[in-house]
């Protein structure tokens, strides 16, 4: 859980950067943040999956 919290903290920082770029009128790349958020959500999705035992 501590590692997951660290990743969430990192995602929050990345999002803040993204939002600042967006405010300048730029359209920043966001692949890293998208992948990070997907990765953070992975354990919960695996726990709820019927296909993984």
């Amino acid at each position: 859980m501590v590692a997951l919290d660290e990743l969430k903290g990192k995602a929050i920082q990345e999002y803040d950067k993204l939002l600042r770029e967006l405010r300048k009128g730029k359209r920043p790349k966001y692949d890293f943040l998208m992948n990070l958020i997907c990765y953070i959500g992975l354990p919960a999705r695996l726990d709820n999956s019927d296909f993984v035992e």
Partner: protein
Amino acid sequence: MDVLLDKHEEDIDSVTFNVEEDGYYTVDHIILPNMKWYENATTEYFEYYDVVYVTDGEKVYKQVKGGSLVECTVKEILERNIEGTTIQKCRVDIFYTAGLQNCYIWYCKQIFDGLLNTCERNKYNDYIFARDMIWMTLNIIDYLVGFKQYLEAQRILEMFQKCGGYCKDFSKTKP
């Protein structure tokens, strides 16, 4: 007894009220002893408290010098320091994002319908960008709420609403 200044409906174990705008809300549950407690309490109990507040379920009363009860306002209960009184408070934090969620679903639907009809991905690049931004925003808000950083989550929400204007029509929702 739950006291809310907004219009609300209450059940034995739940309170329902309308929220029209996304954001951070706090709900204060005010707990007061009832008249049965007041009638059965001994003077020893009363001496324990500086001020005794009670309710009959409809109105709120406070005990004044001489021991008699006078009606008081809900505003007084909400605003006063509860130390040394019979008032108990329980605060619940709520972060409401239904407007943003509806907005996300709207973008997904537009992209889905659009791609089914034309198969021109480039035509929907703006919608795809908006959908991804909203999805990321919802997740980041979720993390901040998990860390109990409600004010930071509110700041993120307001900043997102300001720049881009992706969800202008969804910032206020009617449940």
